[in-house]
């Protein structure tokens, strides 16, 4: 069994979508991700997926206070890490390569 350091990074379709959106927009809130995904991401599950991606080190987050007149809790904003960008790039290349190989 491969050790943790040599384990091949994996990306589920939802994780790929989130990384693509974050890499194109730089920083997004959970709700913005749902809106930008055109209903491919669900609001009930997006936070769990984001948490899992944080555990994997693909994304990072920070708390951001909203405008004082709006009140409420500070919002969590997500951005991709360098590892996340590299994984997405490699994943995209691999997918394209596979598509090309199997299209023949």
């Amino acid at each position, binding site marked *: 069994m491969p050790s943790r350091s040599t384990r091949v990074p994996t990306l589920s379709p939802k994780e790929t979508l989130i990384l693509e959106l974050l890499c194109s927009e730089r920083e997004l*809130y*959970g*709700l913005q991700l749902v809106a930008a995904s055109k209903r491919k991401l669900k*609001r*009930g*599950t997006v*936070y*769990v997926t*984001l*948490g899992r991606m*944080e555990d994997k080190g693909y994304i990072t*987050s920070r708390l951001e206070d*909203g405008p004082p007149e*709006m*009140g*409420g*809790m*500070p*919002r*969590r904003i997500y951005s991709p890490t360098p590892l996340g960008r590299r994984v997405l790039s490699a994943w995209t290349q691999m997918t394209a390569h596979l598509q090309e190989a199997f299209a023949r």
Partner: protein
Amino acid sequence: MTAQPGTVLHRFAARLLPAATVERFVDPAVADLQHEYAAALARSRWRARAIRVADTVRLLQVIGLLSCRYGLTRGWEHLFGPNQLAGAITSRTMAIIGAFTCVIASLMAVAIALMTTRSRAFAGAELQIAVFSLLSGFDAGAMQFGFMLALLIALVRTPARRLKVALLLGMTVLFSAVSIYAIGVTLSPPVLSRMTLADHAVAFVQPGDARSMLFAYGTRIAAGVSPLLFCVLAFALGRRVRIAVAFPAAVSVYAAYLAWFTWLRQPLIASSLPIGLAVWAPDAAIVISTLLLSYAARTQPGPAAA
């Protein structure tokens, strides 16, 4: 002044889930909900209300998903990890069941002996009941009785107030389940007494009425066992983690047990597969896990004793 949307659910999640989980998963969802609500309120009150309702449902979904995941993970840890209470409770339960079953079987043996010496008609049904009580250990309410007594011992011994409440709750549920089970048994036809031991053997390999009768008997056992499963898990998990967290894990096992039993019923009646897959395999799984837990409890000090 109206409370911010999601405040009550956030408080509920804080009681149900660990702080780190709430901070990472629930807080962002609540913050987004509050932000979206405030933005909508500036445009239209009705739109804001609609958003509030829809987002509350989604927030419930997040909390439900997290509590199931957390409950199952922690449930596994507390059942099979060190210092688990389930082992202590189940080992006591098994000991009491064994003793209780032996007493019942002995009384039945005496009754049969008396009946046969007085030359009264003897159909053999009593013997079957005695044999099955000894073989399964779950018959005639022995399991319920054993578990109730084990709970009672734990209730007396524990100094923790929260645990006492959990135990009382578990016992209340259990007593209710046993009562319903007893009423059901009283009203149902005596399935076992209509079957000879040879019928049971035939039912294992051949389709037909005997298989349905075995299922009817199995249902009576399952009716008593499945609430017990629920109580065992909810109690054992509630001892170490928050009681509310134990709930999803206990419900999952409870549902799995019932699903195993019910979903296999019709296919097995119609096929030639071993009927014990549905009738006795779930109980066998309980026995195996009980033995594992008992073995673990032997080497690990239980929390009640600590």
